């Protein structure tokens, strides 16, 4: 792991000098600001019983769907397309270090993007003057959920990027994986044929993987270790598959 930090700092730097990052950041903040204003407008019309933060974080999947592909689709696909993976892997660096370094950089940026939305809450606190609107519980829970689930989402993006040489194909793949994970599993949770006795273990597994349910728990302040384990193990698995995918493609190149 000697080279992990070298690669990480290099990748962060590359992301920071790339115009793509700023386009993604602007698009992200515009969308989040738009959603936030919409929520506040609703709140100004009628009294609601949940805090605006939990409504705001409920739409976590929107930015996930376009930001994760934007941040990660390039990382391994571009290396393979340009052939720089060859020069990279002929230095004393392991594939694991390369994948982890790129993953770390994308995750840091993902967190930084989400972190910038705290400005919205600051503005609300500064100008609304209504303590009921700023409930720290859901805000902390929301950010915690975003950072924990982000581990898995970004890892899935890195995995998708390892599958293709083409950046756009990688982007679409990661979007597909993310939609399948968030909405596909939610849909499976509702289908009736899974209710059969014989399929009970499968049903349990589907219930366990309900990301929306995890979100509800986090914003209510329930941090379940099984849920943490779900994200951590999913992340590790996606990263192991990325490493294997990069190495397998070398063997067959």
């Amino acid at each position, binding site marked *: 792991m*000697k080279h992990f930090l*070298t690669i990480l700092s290099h990748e962060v730097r590359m992301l920071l000098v790339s115009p793509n990052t700023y386009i993604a950041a602007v698009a992200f903040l515009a969308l989040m600001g738009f959603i936030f204003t919409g929520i506040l407008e609703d709140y100004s019309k009628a009294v609601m019983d949940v805090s605006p933060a939990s409504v705001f974080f409920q739409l976590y999947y929107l930015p996930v769907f376009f930001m994760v592909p934007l941040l990660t689709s390039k990382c391994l696909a571009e290396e393979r397309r340009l*052939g*720089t993976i060859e020069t990279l892997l*002929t230095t*004393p660096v392991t594939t694991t270090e390369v994948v982890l370094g790129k993953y770390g950089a994308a995750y840091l940026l993902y967190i930084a993007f989400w972190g910038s939305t705290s400005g919205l809450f600051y503005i609300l606190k500064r100008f609304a003057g209504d303590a009921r609107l700023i409930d720290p519980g859901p805000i902390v829970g929301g950010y915690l959920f975003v950072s924990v689930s982000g581990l898995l989402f970004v890892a899935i993006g890195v995995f998708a990027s390892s599958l293709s040489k083409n950046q756009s194909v990688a982007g679409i793949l990661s979007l597909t994986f993310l939609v399948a994970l968030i909405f596909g599993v939610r849909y499976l949770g509702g289908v009736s044929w899974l209710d059969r006795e014989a399929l009970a273990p499968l049903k349990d597994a589907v219930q366990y993987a309900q990301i929306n349910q995890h979100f509800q728990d986090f914003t209510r302040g329930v941090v379940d270790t099984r849920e943490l384990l779900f994200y951590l193990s999913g992340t590790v698995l996606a990263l192991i598959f990325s490493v294997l995918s990069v190495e397998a493609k070398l*063997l067959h190149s």
Partner: protein
Amino acid sequence: MSALPPQPAIEVTHLVKAYAGVLAVNDISFTVPKGEIIGFLGPNGAGKSTTMRILTGYLPATSGQVSICGYAVASEPDAVKRRIGYMPENNPLPEEMRVSEYLYFRGRLKEIARSKLGSRIDEVLELCDLKRVRHKIIGKLSKGFRQRVGIAECVLAEPPVIIMDEPTIGLDPHQILIVRDLIASLRGRMTVLISSHILPEIEMTCDRVLIINQGRIVAEGTPEDLRREVLGQSAYEIEAAGALGSLPFLLGTIDPGLSVASEGKADAQGFRTIKLKTLNPEDAGEAILRACLSEGLRVRALSRAHPTLEDVFLAATRRSWDAVAENPKAKGQG
């Protein structure tokens, strides 16, 4: 490893690499002593790049053994990667980085101490004549500069073994000269393995040449050895006029193997260009000239033809193709 005192820098024994049933490299063996510059020649698809990739540990071999400075590539890839500088074919570089940034990043990956890295980068920039572009973005550099960035990166960590896949591709003659001097300056300090299509290039820089075709080594040796071994003959060209009918007999008196290979048409002054060949490597120019003059032939010019490496290359690869056509299992060693 119980190595002999002068441990070879690169040692390849019975290397085989198969891609989906196709043999890209078929039982290659060679050794490169320390400090030697060795040229790797071969037509496209001969297995040059594959061999180089296996040497760097980037690709695994199907069978056979490869070791760099005594470390087996298969079992100690990290030790090997610390000892090589590798420039792949087409020299891939990240587009968005600046030259000095790129070298810094690569230096850190190659485990050069941070305190030494700055001065080392200055050194290689100077060496490769890149000082002017050190703050430029690599994607905006011309081909020649990019190529030199690749070479600078290659020698950055002062590895004992340097492997370059077509380093002079796409360079103009002036830049080729710079690269050639650069490679020549590494002679003795580093072992350099370069592949190239530009044959005079290899001939001028390399101590030894390996010609590879269809995954096999078809010829090996110094450029002079190869000439003698592969072509196996000397050729002379003489422009003469007079009674040329007696020439074959005359030549026989000098050297029984000497014969007329071809005879040109007489020009306005009656001179013909006659090509002679012999298996004898000794220079018979003076004897030919004296014999011709003593017979009253008028001689305008006499020269000994120097076969270029190109001729050797063509002859060696053709010979291996013939061998393959006759017998698929024919041995490749020339």
